[in-house]
């Protein structure tokens, strides 16, 4: 409260305006063709006195005097300065700036000229974002930014996994996500944003760029600017939308009934053979092959459906001398391709207003409200569909006791589980109402015109998630039934407030140019959760899905939780250049957090740049327009690491004593004192524009070390793990982005771009331990010093034993009773045994090389663009195949069934059906670990523009019609239907569908 009061006083204090009466200057600003330019900034150098050209390109400046210099600046054009002298009217033609050197980019708490940057920032603009039909804006960045890995998520409303320059934090706890800053407000994900509302997304790739965000920045920072209105712009109403369909791609072929029957009979298991027999008795024999049951279910095909996707955005933006505004609403809806209540719907409202109250005071507000409903998929169904046997139908008329639907039950054939995925799909529903609000308000004071400004901003982002998971009762068999209807309600709210105060000073002293920023930020984050479960409520209609309607509310299932964390930060930045030739850059942030025992952290960065093209010896080299060498170093923190217990904690547990529920306590002795991770990164790079701006090039090499990475360390004997800051993880790589633009003629222009990036992930130190284990015991992933984090670790398969002679010749085979058709492992240490000492690193799930191309063609009113991308070097653990080591009951993929060993010479890759069932000889090996490389045509778009025409006398607004194919083709070898597996372990990944849409953009 005190703070607010102080601010108010300051505000009033600065409202005093100095006024001097002088003459008036007017004129028109045009582009090289003579067409008027709207929105050009016209101001008197060294003051805040300025205006903006109107729709006819006309401007008018009051209070000018003869010695004043007028500056005309407009994005994409070369800035011009003119002395007024005695002129009353100045008409001026601005030249186009092919080099875009005046382009500015948002950096944390301010903006800088791109040419003055010493760090690595890639910005993607609205036009490029809109080509991707997705509810998730980050999805549009796939393949667009060198060094950024986007792992798509197929389920509607799910955010893709984003990795900026590899992974420096132990994965799987949500702490490897980058920080999103939307119009200055921090977010963990931006699933609530409508892509069409975004003006730019800037990826701050290196530590020097991100360090201003200190303890939040270690996983990289993504800055998002939403669209704003422009001063002196007439109201523009824009509709942008698309409608389309999603179609599953590369659906994995499973063994059909005939292949499955063959495998089962070859397994040597009497039980398996009897299940086939049972199926033939129950469902009859196939007329094609009488030894196969007369059922052939393709479960993947059955559980998928074509699904629609659509987005409609309507926005209005504009402005006058003092005010600019942008308002909009949008609706997005996407069905999931999984055949259940699986969809995502989002309705957004937004408004952004900036008002220049006086020469010195600007106030503004920004509000985005997002109201989404998500029906989450039962992801387990993908797994069930893989394992469900093809000799089981969906429905079974003989299952007369089943209710409410006569689904078939694999238990009736003798299998352990019911297998049929349809009860999961049809009797489960997971609903989430997600409401997010971003609200902020700022006051900006220009204390010394064009030089010193103060800005104070209060932000509040509020999220409420109401979850309702309903499980309806069914009976399919005694052991495949759900007796109790249950409804789990869970209410979560997140309330994050920040208050930022920023002082910015910009000045030039002769050839010395400097921008200095100092600020403070106060954060208050709160989280609250309450959940309870109700059993047996009226299930006929949704309106009675309430705990209040339930017969029973188990006390064990009532939980609440809360979190309150505070943060206080001070930060500053100095950006200096001498003649725009020598650049120096530095930021410092001190972050205080209530989350850890260690309260304060300090995050500095320094950078330097040398614009070689400004040197005399390059001035005359015509092909080089701009050439800059840059280098930087910075330190970042990651406070997504969970707060440590810091001390022994006590939990309440319950048990039955003499049929009474009693409570006791257990005290855990495993605790750790955690702190944030610290990452240090060195980046050297080169930026060039060549051949009159037609070719641009950005190259970077980085070395990023996470110094005290928090890693899950297994607790010996007890199981589970405890997080400890015990590692040093290094990511290093090279990134190159090239773009070529040219106009062949007035009608035809084209662009070609490519970017590549390499990545080496390496565990550098584990503080004395040789390795730290992760993953499942049977499918070990191990972090070893000198190897990638969580590398797959197991044996190498040399082949399959082909005949008895080979068995007899191998002591390992004899000792273990192996037979032809069993896998043969490599004796790595040549000790005559194959055991756990023969395990080696089998690969990592991080791609070592990513590449992307894009092509753009414009001919008259036609536009064509195509993007392609791919990655190599990563491995995927085909965990689905691994299930067989425990149970015979499931189906197998067709590749395994077809190419299994079934006699000498039939396969040296896959074991026999019997060999597959020997759990003790199916060790973690490169049989399970497959190549995850893929190549994809990411996006193809064809568009036609109707530009201000009249048809039969009726005016036609500016219209763009587009056809888009998103991810129409993916090529890979992996035996799954999706090579995009975020953590490399493929148990059940939601397929990534291809999307085909027709789009319309109309500007009224």
């Amino acid at each position, binding site marked *: 409260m005190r703070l607010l009061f102080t601010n108010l006083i300051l505000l009033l204090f600065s409202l005093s305006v100095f006024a001097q009466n002088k003459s008036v200057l007017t004129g028109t600003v045009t582009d090289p063709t003579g067409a008027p330019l709207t929105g050009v900034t016209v101001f008197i150098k060294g003051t805040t006195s300025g205006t903006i050209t109107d729709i006819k390109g006309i401007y008018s400046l009051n209070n000018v005097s003869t010695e004043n210099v007028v500056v005309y600046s407009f994005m994409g054009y070369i800035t011009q300065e003119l002395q007024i002298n005695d002129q009353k009217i100045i008409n001026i033609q601005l030249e186009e700036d092919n080099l875009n050197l005046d382009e500015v980019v948002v950096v944390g708490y301010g903006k800088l000229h791109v040419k003055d940057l010493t760090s690595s920032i890639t910005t993607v603009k609205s036009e490029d974002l809109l080509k991707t039909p997705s509810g998730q804006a980050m999805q549009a960045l796939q393949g667009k930014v060198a060094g950024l890995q986007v792992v798509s998520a197929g389920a509607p409303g799910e955010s893709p996994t984003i990795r900026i320059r590899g992974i420096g934090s132990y994965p799987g706890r949500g702490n490897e996500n980058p920080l999103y800053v939307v119009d200055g407000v921090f977010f963990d994900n931006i699933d609530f944003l409508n892509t069409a509302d975004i003006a730019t997304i800037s990826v701050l790739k290196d530590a020097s760029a991100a360090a201003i965000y200190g303890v939040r920045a270690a996983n990289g920072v993504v800055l998002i600017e939403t669209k704003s209105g422009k001063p002196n712009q007439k109201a523009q109403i824009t509709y942008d939308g698309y409608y389309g369909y999603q179609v599953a791609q590369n659906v994995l072929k499973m063994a059909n009934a005939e292949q499955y029957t063959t495998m089962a009979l070859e397994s040597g298991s009497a039980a398996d053979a009897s299940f086939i027999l049972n199926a033939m008795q129950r469902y009859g024999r196939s007329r094609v092959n009488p030894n196969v049951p007369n059922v052939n279910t393709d479960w993947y095909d059955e559980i998928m459906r074509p699904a629609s996707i659509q987005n409609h955005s309507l926005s209005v933006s504009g402005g006058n001398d003092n005010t600019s505004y942008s308002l909009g609403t949008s609706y997005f809806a996407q069905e999931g391709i999984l055949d259940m209540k699986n969809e995502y719907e989002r309705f957004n409202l937004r408004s952004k207003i900036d008002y220049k109250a006086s020469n010195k005071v600007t106030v503004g507000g920004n509000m985005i409200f997002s109201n989404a409903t998500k029906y989450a998929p039962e992801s387990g169904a993908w797994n069930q569909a893989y394992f469900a046997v093809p000799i089981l139908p969906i429905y079974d008329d003989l299952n007369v006791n089943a209710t409410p639907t006569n689904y078939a039950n694999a238990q009736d054939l003798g299998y*352990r589980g019911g297998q049929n995925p349809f009860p999961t799909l049809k009797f489960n529903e997971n609903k989430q109402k997600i409401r997010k609000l971003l609200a902020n308000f700022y006051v900006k004071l220009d204390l010394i015109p064009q030089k*010193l400004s103060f800005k104070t901003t209060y932000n509040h982002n509020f999220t409420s998630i109401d979850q309702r998971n309903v499980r309806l009762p069914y009976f399919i068999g005694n052991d495949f039934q759900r007796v109790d209807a249950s409804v789990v309600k869970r209410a979560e709210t997140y309330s994050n407030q920040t208050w930022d*105060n920023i002082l910015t000073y910009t000045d030039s002293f002769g050839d010395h140019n400097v921008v200095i920023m100092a600020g403070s930020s106060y954060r208050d984050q709160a989280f609250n959760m309450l959940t309870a479960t109700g059993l047996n409520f009226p299930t006929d209609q949704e309106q009675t899905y309430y705990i209040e309607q339930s017969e029973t509310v188990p006390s064990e299932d009532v939980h609440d939780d809360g979190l309150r964390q*505070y943060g206080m930060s001070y930060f500053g930045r100095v950006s200096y250049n001498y003649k725009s030739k020598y650049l120096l850059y530095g930021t410092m942030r001190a972050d205080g957090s209530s989350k850890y025992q260690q309260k304060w952290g300090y995050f500095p960065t320094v950078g330097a740049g040398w614009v070689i093209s400004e040197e005399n010896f390059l001035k005359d080299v015509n092909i080089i327009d701009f050439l800059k060498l840059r280098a930087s170093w910075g330190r970042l923190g990651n406070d997504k690491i969970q707060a440590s217990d810091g001390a022994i904690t006590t939990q309440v547990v319950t048990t039955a004593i003499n049929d009474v529920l009693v409570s*006791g306590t257990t*005290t855990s002795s495993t605790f750790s004192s955690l702190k944030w991770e610290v990452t240090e990164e060195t980046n050297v790079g080169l930026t060039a524009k060549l051949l009159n701006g037609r070719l641009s090039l950005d190259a970077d090499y980085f070395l990023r070390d996470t110094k005290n990475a928090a890693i899950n360390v297994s607790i010996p004997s007890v199981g589970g793990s405890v997080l400890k800051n015990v590692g040093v993880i290094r990511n290093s790589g090279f990134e190159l982005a090239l773009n070529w633009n040219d106009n062949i003629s007035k009608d035809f222009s084209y662009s070609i771009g490519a970017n590549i990036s390499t990545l080496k992930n390496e565990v550098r130190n584990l503080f004395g331990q040789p390795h730290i284990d992760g993953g499942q015991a049977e499918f070990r992933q191990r972090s070893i010093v000198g190897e990638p984090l969580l590398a797959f670790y197991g044996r190498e398969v040399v082949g399959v034993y082909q005949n008895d002679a080979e068995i007899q010749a191998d002591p390992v085979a004899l000792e273990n009773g192996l037979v032809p058709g069993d896998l043969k492992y490599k004796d790595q240490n040549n000790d005559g045994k194959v055991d756990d000492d023969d395990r080696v690193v089998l690969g990592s799930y991080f791609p070592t090389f990513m590449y992307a191309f894009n092509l753009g063609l414009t001919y008259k009113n036609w536009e064509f663009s195509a993007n392609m991308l791919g990655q190599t070097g990563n491995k995927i653990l085909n965990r689905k195949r691994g299930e067989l080591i425990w149970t015979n009951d499931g189906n197998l993929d067709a590749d395994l069934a077809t190419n299994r060993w079934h006699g000498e010479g039939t396969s040296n890759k896959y074991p026999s059906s019997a060999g597959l069932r020997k759990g003790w000889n199916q060790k973690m090996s490169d049989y399970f670990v497959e190549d995850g490389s893929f190549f994809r045509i990411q996006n193809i778009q064809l568009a036609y523009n109707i530009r201000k025409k009249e048809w039969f006398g009726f005016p036609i607004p500016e219209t763009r019609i587009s056809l888009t194919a998103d991810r129409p083709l993916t090529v890979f070898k992996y035996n799954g239907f999706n090579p995009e597996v975020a953590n490399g372990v493929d148990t059940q990944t939601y397929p990534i569908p291809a999307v085909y849409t027709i789009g319309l953009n109309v500007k009224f």
Partner: protein
Amino acid sequence: MKKLKYSIQLILYIAVIMFATSCEDNLNDPAENKSFTEGTDYTISEDMDLPLLGLYAGFNDKGWPNNPLMAVRGDDVNAGGLGDQQDFAETDKFNYNKDFWMYNAVWEDEYADVFTSYSAIEQIQLYQEFTSNKALGDQYIAEAKTIRAWLLFNLSRVWGGIFIPENSDPSNLLVASLTSKADVMQFISDQMDEAIPLLPDMRPNERTDIPGGVTKYTALAIKALANLEMENYQKVADATSQIISNGGFSLEPDFYELFKIGGKLNSENLLEMQYSDFGMGAGDNKSYLFAFFGPQGWTPKVTGAGDGWGFWEPSMKYIKFMLDRNETVRLETSVLFTDRGIAEIEKDPNYATLPSWISNTTRSGDQINDYARAMFASGKHYLPSDELTPGRTDYGTNKNFTCIRYAEILLMHAEALTQGASSSVMSADDAVNEVRARAGLAPLTGVTNEQVMDEKFAELAMEWGTRFYDMVRLGKYDELSYEGRTFSADLTYLPYPQNQVDLLPALQGNN
């Protein structure tokens, strides 16, 4: 003038930026919704039982693979569940796979409770500093030691040499060394000697504070079990004598009912894991996963009652052994027959005609159907569908799991005496005959050790692997080499789980 004004403004703005420091106090607020143990009020003496009840909760909350892995290798029971969890079946056949998840799961689940017992003792000691009733604290600590002894006893029988932790911090195991099985058993025996004088002198079901909790006789029983493993037969006889003469235990007359709802907190039980649905058809429920042991396919008397997974098949050897002895009570209670199983027995000309009472329908009216994974199911883990609380359908819900019962005490007593120990409390004949009487068998005179071992086989089959560990101890490997298996001394212990070998230096090179 202008400059001065700017300077004042500038100073003020910097002040605002720095002023926010007043919010820094919040940085020291503690985390929400966490009870830090350092915040526990140890002066509230009534709370002293909380850590102990927490340990009982851990003891009752047993992972389903624990008992099966401990007990599967005897000639009384086969893995069953054919075609599923192959490495469990391989373990039954003495082909061990240290990568098999069950080995690690059992190791970790048992050890988690061992460490809980240490932390419970540490917590009780903190309460003891303030309570006026120090003796009660001593009793609670003795109870924790008794539970811990049971856990270590089972771990050591399975793996031989194991770790005996020194406190509640598992990371200390990184530098610990293994204790041999003999030393573990001696440790258990010594611990029980410490605990016995501090524990309540009554049956567990006579306790009113924690009904079914451990008593002096539980500790004596565990002492007897440990000494039996060490072949200290006189100590076995001494401990069992005390239980027999002073414990007030008796055999439940209805053997069938002992393993049903009526067996809960029975006067025969010295230690049991307790479960309950609290008499309600829905809501809170504490249960062991009895489905593992149940038949995979039945026509229950109460429709809709769930069946089992088809593991835990009584061996043909055991069934024929029982038929040879004309057992009815114990055979009916121990084995659920399927038609396929009955036909399989009858294929043997010696058993072409079975007693008429043998059928695939239990006396409670549940019909066991044929299923591919096994021919028989375990009767001791079976709860009739009509004993389920209406609304509950999971197999075995509301049934307890008995760990030590008085029949085993009597038979251990007889075994010790036939191995040369002496007792003035009860003779071997009397002990054996008390058990036989309940089974409806005629008394014996001058029982031999072999007869006692047969009696144990008949009485304790399918429960805790007693048969396997007896035969290993007595070196009767030919008994274990049945139905195609071959047992030898080097197969006595399971290999340490690979997961633990990778973590714990002491286990490396020990497999």
